[in-house]
């Protein structure tokens, strides 16, 4: 049905082949440890056969930045992705750096209906040419599965599926719904979703699934679709009915994927998604979790693959799968609505889906480049570091006894995947196993904007309202010299760039940056008796390329164990400059980039002394005799000598 998705006919038996396993967040220290303990036999075999190096990550070491380094062979100055979060210097509005999803801009109004002229759109914000586009130009077949920072996928001749950055059907990066009749559960928005109060009447619950904003209606109210749940009055079991589909769930059971169609204009316009239900509790209180509504890969509402039918092809071959970029619902754990076991089952489903697709796609590979991305180590190192590290503020011995090996288990699954690849290696096949960054504990938070406020760099109109959660609420921009946005970014309030900038570019800005840098490097955590920040990079030194001046002016590199505080990232001012991290999200990597390198393993000897992510695109191209593109700053890791990063 999709001829271009079928494997290409075998060509010359001497054609080079390249397999890349991209394992987000695989940490060299943990990998070494698990290898020493005999838990990663295939990785040990690969190291013995070829090589294992640390891979220098990006500045800052955040996934959208790091994978963009890999994709383009440039650093953030070239690809313009500097952080998860960017700001518009004129409005100081915040947005996700890698993509933008917009509804239709114009509409004709007819009564309560607003008929949009043209559909909504999705725009990828990463600049530069992706390595697979260069492969396309040279007729090298390629499959690129779920690489981050590729939503919507750039035009390509090969098979690509978008990954991190792909929104749910509501245009968010994951919004779950939690239905309950528990009056103790506060109705309304929680961090990653919303709690929806329901009533159990005659053992029956009726409620609405929350869909996308309906831009066809005046005011763009959310589209909803009703569903009902018949709860057994005695047993812990329920029957759910959604749009004619019926399924039974026992307490503690996840449903399969359920397809849902949201009617925007009856008989005229609709949008399809899919979600999973988790029946958390029947009695005494009704508790039902519904996952974010994912874009249906069989009929995607937004572009998620090239060719456009590839996502449907994958569904036919390997079943339904999460399309949302960050599929693991970590927020439901942070909000206390899913416990560790419940979350783990969801996280294992995500990996099982990826492995099913891998098992369907990898055997087809016989020419060119095959890239496959795994998210599991990253998300689960974020969530379960606290259960393998007794020094973490959230360490719990009882919970550790139950799930303390979760991270190790996911590493072992990666070893199993590698075990499927090793037998396919031959003289013409190169394998790269790599990660975008490593991992570290996240013990303590540093509230950068609070520190800037306390040190006189930010001025508020009214000091009594500093506790607002609204981004930069009450900031007096005409007396503010610097501000923090995102996980590592620090910006000077520059005249001519920011709409109310007050610091002159040149000497004044340079001396201010030097002053702030020196002060930040001197910040001590009196509780832990160590520096909070070990590195501060100047954009002018860290970045090369056309966009080098569009990101933060300073990049704050936190010490191992520290990260930007939860609220400071979006411009809030918590009371304390430094505080314990009591969130289940307990491991992180958004730190000093030299402290969290990634891994690079190959079945061949790696010649580069200090390989970096920016070397990977030139390496891929060199394997096929393709010169690196203009702006690429690295070189093949198989060529002697070290590049400038």
């Amino acid at each position, binding site marked *: 049905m999709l001829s271009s998705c079928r494997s290409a006919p075998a060509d010359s038996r001497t054609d080079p082949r390249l397999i890349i396993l991209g394992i987000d967040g695989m940490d060299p220290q943990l990998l070494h440890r698990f290898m020493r303990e005999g838990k990663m036999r295939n990785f040990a075999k690969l190291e013995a056969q070829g090589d294992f190096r640390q891979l220098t990550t990006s500045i800052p070491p955040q996934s959208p930045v790091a994978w963009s380094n890999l994709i383009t062979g440039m650093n953030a100055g070239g690809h313009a992705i500097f952080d998860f979060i960017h700001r518009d210097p004129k*409005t100081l509005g915040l947005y996700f750096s890698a993509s933008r999803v917009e509804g239709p801009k114009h509409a004709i109004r007819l009564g309560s209906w607003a008929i949009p*002229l043209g559909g909504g759109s999705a725009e990828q914000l990463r600049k530069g040419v992706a390595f697979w586009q260069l492969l396309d130009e040279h007729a090298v077949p390629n499959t690129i599965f779920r690489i981050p920072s590729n939503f919507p996928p750039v035009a390509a001749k090969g098979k690509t599926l978008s990954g991190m950055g792909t929104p749910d059907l509501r245009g968010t*990066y994951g919004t779950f719904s939690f239905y309950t009749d528990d009056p103790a559960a506060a109705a309304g928005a929680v961090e990653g979703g919303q709690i929806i109060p329901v009533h159990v009447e005659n053992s029956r619950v009726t409620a609405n699934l929350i869909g996308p904003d309906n831009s066809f209606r005046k005011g763009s109210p959310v589209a909803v679709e009703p569903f009902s749940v018949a709860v057994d009055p005695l047993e812990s079991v329920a029957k759910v009915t959604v749009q004619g589909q019926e399924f039974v769930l026992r307490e503690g059971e996840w449903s399969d994927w359920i397809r849902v169609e949201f009617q925007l204009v009856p008989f005229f316009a609709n949008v399809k998604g899919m979600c999973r239900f988790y029946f958390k509790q029947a009695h005494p209180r009704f508790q039902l979790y519904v996952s974010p509504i994912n874009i249906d890969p069989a009929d995607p509402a937004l572009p998620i693959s090239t060719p456009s039918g590839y996502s449907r092809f994958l569904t036919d071959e390997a079943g339904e799968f999460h399309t949302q970029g960050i599929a693991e619902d970590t927020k439901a754990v942070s909000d206390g609505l899913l416990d560790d076991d419940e979350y783990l089952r969801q996280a294992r489903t995500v990996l099982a889906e990826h492995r099913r697709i891998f098992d369907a796609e990898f055997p087809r590979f016989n020419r060119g480049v095959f890239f496959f991305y795994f998210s599991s180590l990253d998300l689960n190192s974020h969530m379960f570091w606290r259960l393998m590290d007794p020094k973490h503020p959230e360490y719990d011995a009882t919970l550790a006894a139950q799930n303390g090996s979760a991270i190790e288990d996911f590493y072992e699954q990666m070893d199993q995947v590698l075990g499927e690849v090793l037998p396919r290696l031959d003289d013409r096949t190169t394998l790269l196993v790599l990660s975008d960054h490593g991992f570290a504990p996240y013990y303590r938070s540093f509230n950068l904007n609070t520190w800037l406020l306390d040190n006189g760099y930010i001025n508020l109109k009214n000091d009594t309202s500093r506790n607002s959660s609204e*981004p930069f609420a009450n900031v007096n921009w005409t007396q503010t010299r610097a501000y923090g946005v995102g996980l590592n970014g620090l910006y000077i309030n520059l005249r001519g760039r920011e709409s109310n900038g007050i610091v002159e570019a040149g000497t004044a800005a340079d001396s201010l940056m030097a002053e702030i840098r020196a002060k930040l490097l001197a910040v001590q955590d009196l509780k832990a008796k160590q520096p909070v920040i070990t590195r501060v990079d100047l954009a002018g030194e860290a970045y090369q390329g056309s966009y080098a001046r569009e990101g933060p002016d300073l990049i704050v590199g936190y010490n191992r164990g520290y990260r930007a505080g939860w609220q400071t990232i979006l411009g809030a001012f918590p009371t304390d400059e430094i505080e314990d991290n009591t969130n289940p999200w307990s491991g992180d990597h958004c730190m000093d980039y030299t402290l969290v390198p990634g891994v690079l393993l190959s079945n061949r000897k790696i010649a580069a002394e200090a390989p970096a992510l920016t070397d990977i695109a030139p390496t891929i191209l060199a394997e096929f005799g393709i010169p690196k593109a203009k702006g690429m700053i690295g070189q093949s890791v198989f060529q002697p000598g070290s590049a400038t990063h």
Partner: protein
Amino acid sequence: MFGSHKVKLEGELLDKVKQCAEACGYASVDEFVVHALEKEVNKVLPPSEGGSTSKEIVKKRLQGLGYIE
């Protein structure tokens, strides 16, 4: 400060505005003018004077990334 405010358009500008409104599919000249002004206001005003509702929407979208509270 409150209530509506009328702006008089005439001559060549009015003709062009009418053409733009029609070409872009706006229901009326008023709707086009209001939308154009909204876009300019959002560009010019600093965030503390912008709408908090839209900031909350942006925050909600970003929270799903996991890194943000």
